[in-house]
């Protein structure tokens, strides 16, 4: 590396800009988290101070646990997210394999048909989706959400996975065929393990929007028993607007699971984005 692009002044300026922006990015989250552990008085008197021995209080969390069924909401969000990801990955990988591996009439057309959904948001069809869910009795079930998110995630999953499946060596698959393996065994035993990194990328991409979605839970499954964490906290906060302790605690409880997931998967997510999976 040569000196022309490096000098201490630039480096300091670079750190200063990045640090400033990092503070802007994290400040709101930080303020919410620290204030959720303070008494009501302290929240207003010194909003930026850390909770101390005198100002520490978990009254907000107590209200949240008493009033809102956050464990149920969390469980619902978990079920919806995990099931949707499972189906996106399974069905997406199967379709991607068919498109990448076999030459058949209509292959390109099928690829284009599945790619349509990358650009067109599924929300446009909400009126008819709700009507269909009412007709099939799926309203206020988690299955309705799982179906919608699976359909929403499939186009990009097929697109990304088929790019990766094309890179799997033909020799390997042909060796399997000579050994008498069925096409299904080749797919599940030989190809799937090889595209695992791509599957992880797809999973991480889909996880956040599904977990955070408010629109479909609000429309398809607003019942108490099927509320997701996002909808549950929205409704809860709406009811407790004036109870600042409860609102701040509810916000913190909604932030924490995502933050934990992010810490676990951030490397995967960032590698996924920067590896150009979405070019």
């Amino acid at each position, binding site marked *: 590396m040569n000196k022309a692009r490096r000098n201490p002044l630039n480096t300091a300026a670079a750190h200063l800009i990045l640090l400033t922006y990092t503070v802007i*990015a994290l400040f709101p989250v930080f303020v919410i988290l620290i204030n959720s552990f303070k008494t009501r008085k302290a929240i207003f008197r010194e909003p930026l101070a850390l909770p101390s021995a005198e100002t520490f209080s978990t009254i907000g969390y107590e209200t949240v646990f008493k009033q809102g069924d956050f464990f149920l909401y969390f469980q619902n969000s978990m079920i919806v997210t995990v099931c949707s990801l499972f189906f996106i990955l399974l069905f997406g990988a199967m379709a991607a394999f*068919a498109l990448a591996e076999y030459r058949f009439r209509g292959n390109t057309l099928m690829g284009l048909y*599945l790619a349509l959904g990358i650009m067109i948001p599924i929300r446009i069809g909400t*009126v008819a989706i709700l009507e269909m869910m009412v007709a099939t009795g799926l309203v206020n079930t988690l299955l309705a959400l799982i179906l919608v998110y699976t359909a929403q995630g499939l186009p990009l999953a097929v697109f990304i996975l088929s790019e990766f499946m094309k890179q799997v060596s033909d020799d390997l698959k042909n060796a399997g065929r000579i050994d008498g393996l069925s096409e299904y065994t080749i797919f599940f035993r030989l190809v799937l393990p090889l595209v695992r990194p791509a599957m992880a990328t797809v999973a991480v991409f889909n996880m956040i929007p599904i977990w955070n979605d408010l629109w479909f839970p609000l429309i398809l499954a607003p019942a108490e028993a099927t509320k997701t964490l996002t909808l549950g906290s929205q409704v809860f906060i709406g009811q407790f607007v004036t109870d600042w302790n409860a609102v701040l605690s509810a916000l913190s409880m909604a932030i924490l699971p995502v933050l934990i997931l992010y810490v676990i998967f951030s490397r995967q997510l*960032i590698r996924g984005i920067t590896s150009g999976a979405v070019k």
Partner: protein
Amino acid sequence: MSDRLRPRWHILVFLAPAVLVYTAVMIFPLFNTLRLSLFTEVEQERVFVGLQNFRTLFGDAIWSEQFWNALGNNFWFFFIHMVVQNPIGVILAAILSHPRLRFAHLYRSAIFIPTILSFVIVGFAWKLILSPIWGIAPSLLDAVGLKSLFAPWLGKEEYALTTLALISVWQFVGIPMMLIYAALLSIPEEILEAGECDGITGMSAFWKIKLPLILPSIGIISILTFVGNFNAFDLIYAAQGALAGPDFSTDILGTFLYRTFFGFQLQLGDPHMGSAIATAMFVIILIGVCIYLFGIQTRLRRYQF
């Protein structure tokens, strides 16, 4: 060759689940929504009325005023994203992509955190911070001597939409940052070194070499932002409610669709007018995507390294 003659059922088995779910839950409802916009309900019967709903939407004073208001707001929302989010994203990515910058991965992960939060969290968190009752924003402005600038931004008609757009930019700046960062990393060192031999360094290297090379990424980000903005809903709903207050000044197509479809206060929900608005959104997004695919993407030169 024998492959051709045997029916290859496994292809069907591999394709069927994805195609079925996608068709049944996405494509079919999409077209069904377009179809429903041509109907209306008279005495609990669905009647075909042709383009009547669209005539109401664009011709009836009450409806058209709301529609153009929402559309105009939506364009302003998008405009703020384009002029604020993309430049910040490019600047951050350009700094991060400096070789041998220490703590780069820490900055990167931290700046991306808002992107993973839900709109509900973001909307309420900012609502609290900007609230005049709590006083965080005024006291922060006071600290830098700008207290006179403070206003209850989310409550004022003239600022509310811009404030929400900036909150949304705050949340999503991580995405352009990451994508452009990836594009910058893929520029081969030889090209930059060749530029240096010709005396192009520092800022001029950025403007003359790197920026043209990352234009395709900026194009992709722009179309993603466009599609995202024109079906946005959650942030406005979480921060301002379905009425998109104050006085509809933050109403965008997503909230307008929601109110029409489900009704609010005294107005009853109308799925057919809702479909008409959804159809309008579909057309707008389609036009945007077509402009990108045929007008912009084909003109951007892509370089293969």
